[in-house]
């Protein structure tokens, strides 16, 4: 062991910096281990006991900083000291580059050679202009803003296509590029599955399910909700498929969208044949025949999309457990005869869709603010009736207030309202974690859950509350902690968006368990 040490008299470094200095010092080539600590008696004893108390450290006092370097064999430790001292030199408070703020994309892009992507989240009236500036400066674009005129979207996508750039959005909430989550995304494992999605929460769900199956994401390209409309023509999805087809890091591709315009669906499916990689298509409520004919893999649900992709990307053994029928039966047995309805209170549009379709599929009538059938459209302010599924992220609700993933107050009030309705058997809710989301969506809901349960209990009813946490073990807060918190207040927790729908169906429809 070859050790060198030095003492910095009266040097105070805050502990977070000290920690980071220690970490960096240990990473210096040639360092076996390095230790940076205040020169207290006890710290010296620790060094002594591991044989690193160099003589020069004996004199260190509690106000001094000690630096101990244990070099790897063949490296002279004193040669490493300058590199470590370098770490201690406080960087001058930014008077130069860091101080500069830019007002426009053009100036920022010119000053920052390496810039390659712009995230734009400004009022829709100005968004197209900023996106155009970004594209003109050679930047890929993630356009988060909504309320961008469709003509602008068409023009922006034409420009991006011509320049070979990504034009994600407008109204694109989710993307993962080079393993970096943009806007609303979950922390998922890097991997070999590429996603192109016209639906924000839908793509979050698919990426989280893929992660849960042990696989990971290469790229997740959000296209914006209108990309597959007749007018826009799927420009971004087609360019996205081509980019993933050419990407050596991607082995399987998943497409996620609400049902596209028929002509656009045809164009998109035509890309599958030339992709040269397996493509899973999850177009909610789409046709299996068309997908199969195009050589794609049809997915009937978000869970199915993730599962197929994982199998195609190299884990043919991947599987998911089926619905716990006994649990649903038990819940159903606890309801009073008049408790017949499910109320879905969702933040994520695609999650709401998927659960709602599970009931519609079973022949139930469902009222919703996002219903396609005008006879069953329920306005945002109206009270629930029968089975009601509400997407709180829809424009009607968000008008003038933050997205429910950030401001949950409307949904909390609604939960308490639903608990007072004797015809309600269950309330189904989603809790979306990840970048951009509320820091503790479950925690903020727990008081309302407790209150709702109490209202029902006081009236002699069992109110089943079903919760689905969309998140991973890498999100902050992590999914396990949120699930534990839900379970601690008696919420039935489901394991995927797909299972959430299945469960909701099972507790109101005996015999419809799968």
């Amino acid at each position, binding site marked *: 062991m070859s050790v060198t040490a030095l003492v910095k008299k*009266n040097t*105070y*470094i*805050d*502990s*977070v910096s*000290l*920690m980071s200095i*220690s970490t960096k010092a*240990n990473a210096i080539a040639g360092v076996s*281990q390095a*230790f*940076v*600590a*205040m020169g*207290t*008696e*006890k*710290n010296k*004893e*620790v*060094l002594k*006991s*591991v044989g*690193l108390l160099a003589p020069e450290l004996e004199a260190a*006092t*509690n*106000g001094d900083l000690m630096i*101990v370097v244990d070099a790897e064999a063949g490296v002279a430790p004193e040669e490493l000291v300058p590199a470590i001292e370098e770490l201690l030199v*406080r960087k001058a*408070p930014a008077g130069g580059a860091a101080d500069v*703020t830019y007002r426009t994309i053009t100036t920022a892009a010119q000053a920052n050679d390496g810039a390659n992507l712009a995230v734009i989240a400004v009022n829709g009236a100005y968004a197209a202009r900023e996106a155009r500036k970004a594209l003109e400066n050679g930047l890929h674009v993630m356009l988060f803003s909504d309320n961008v005129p469709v003509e602008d979207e068409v023009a922006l996508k034409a420009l991006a296509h011509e320049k070979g750039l990504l034009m994600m959005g407008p109204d694109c909430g989710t993307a993962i590029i080079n393993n970096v989550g943009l806007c609303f995304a979950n922390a998922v494992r890097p991997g070999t599955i590429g996603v192109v999605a016209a639906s924000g929460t839908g793509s979050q769900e698919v990426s989280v399910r893929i992660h849960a199956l042990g696989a990971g994401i290469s790229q997740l390209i959000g296209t914006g909700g209108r990309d597959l409309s007749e007018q826009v023509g799927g420009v971004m999805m087609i360019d996205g498929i081509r980019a993933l087809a050419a990407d050596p890091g991607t082995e399987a591709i998943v497409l996620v969208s609400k049902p596209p315009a028929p002509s656009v669906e045809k164009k998109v499916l035509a890309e599958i044949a030339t992709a040269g990689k397996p493509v899973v298509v999850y177009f909610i409520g789409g046709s299996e025949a068309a997908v199969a004919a195009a050589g794609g893999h049809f997915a009937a649900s978000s869970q199915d999309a993730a599962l197929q992709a994982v199998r195609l990307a190299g884990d043919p053994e991947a599987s998911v457990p089926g619905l716990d029928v006994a649990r649903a039966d038990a819940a159903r047995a606890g309801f009073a005869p008049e408790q017949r309805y499910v109320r879905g209170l969702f933040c994520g549009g695609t999650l709401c869709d998927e659960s709602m379709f599970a009931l519609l599929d079973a022949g139930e009538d469902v009222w919703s603010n996002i219903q396609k059938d005008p006879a069953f459209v329920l306005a945002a302010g109206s009270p629930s009736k029968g089975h009601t599924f509400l997407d709180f992220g829809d424009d009607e609700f968000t008008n003038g207030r933050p997205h429910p993933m950030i401001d949950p107050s409307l949904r909390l009030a609604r939960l308490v309202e639903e608990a007072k309705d004797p015809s309600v058997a269950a309330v189904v809710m989603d809790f979306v974690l990840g970048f951009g989301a509320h820091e*503790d969506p479950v*925690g903020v809901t*727990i*008081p309302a859950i*407790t209150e709702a349960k109490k209202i029902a209990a006081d009236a002699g009813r069992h109110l089943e509350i079903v919760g689905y946490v969309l998140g991973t073990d890498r999100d902050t*807060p992590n999914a396990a*902690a949120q699930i534990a918190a839900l379970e*601690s*207040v008696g919420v039935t927790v489901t394991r995927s968006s797909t299972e959430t729908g299945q469960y909701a169906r099972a507790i109101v429809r005996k015999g419809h368990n799968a």
Partner: protein
Amino acid sequence: MATQLRAPVCRALSLDARLASALDKAPMTGPVHSVFRRVLNVLAADRLVALSSEGLDDAPWSVRTDVADWRRLGVEVGAVVVLDSGHIAVEGAPGIALDLRHCQKWHATVSSAAAVATDLLARRTAALEGLLDARGVPGGVVPPRADASPIEAELGRRLRAGCERLTQAVRANDDGAASLAARSLLGLGPGLTPAGDDFMVGLALVAAVPGSRLVAVGRAIRAVLDACPDHTTLVSRATLEEAVAGRARESLLGILNRVFAAPHGDDARFAEHLRTPVDRVLSIGHTSGTDILSGLVAGLRLENELRGSM
């Protein structure tokens, strides 16, 4: 407009009431001891007075200001600071002229242990422990990650052994053993407030709650601080001395006061209310917040045990 003019002086937002009354009696003068981003420490009248940033808690012997980054104000260590009942001025930094006359006074207050029954205290302790488990940072008294270096491993081992010895000694009401254990912890850990000290701060705060059964803790720590005045850093020593007297930064007192508050609401709600101050404490230093809370939890568990035994 980005070109708006800003006032060149910074403002004092609040100050420790005890510091205010000390300054009313006599002005203090002393050198700048250390400058960090969010704190500037002044060594005046044999104690550290902290000038802190808006985002930080009120704390003993501290003045909270709207300064965002003290390092950017060009203050050198050793520059003379003059504090009197109305103002704080720093030599060579005319921009730092804090007016104390109109700023709020903060009082460090702790409620009594008598208000809360043993079973409730146990549940609340468990809630706090749950938060700490979920959110604490490993590396101090919490076991380090598997890839720790031999030094870190040895440090961790000693820390946990010391903590264990100290709690055992208090449980046994053995003053001698408690002092020895406290001595083995004092100054142990790399940071400016060593982890061993942080743990004792948490423990000492519980002991300082009126009606606590942990009086042995306070006695032991005081004895060790007197016997080994130079075994730890000045900042840490000052924090420990205050903790023994039941004074600590606001978020810590917040946790303590919630734990010892009269019963209200259910347990879930209690954890919810605890979350904010716990997060604030956890953000102290690198592992410091975790270490202090570990001490606090250890103290609360002891408190419960000792109540049961009486």
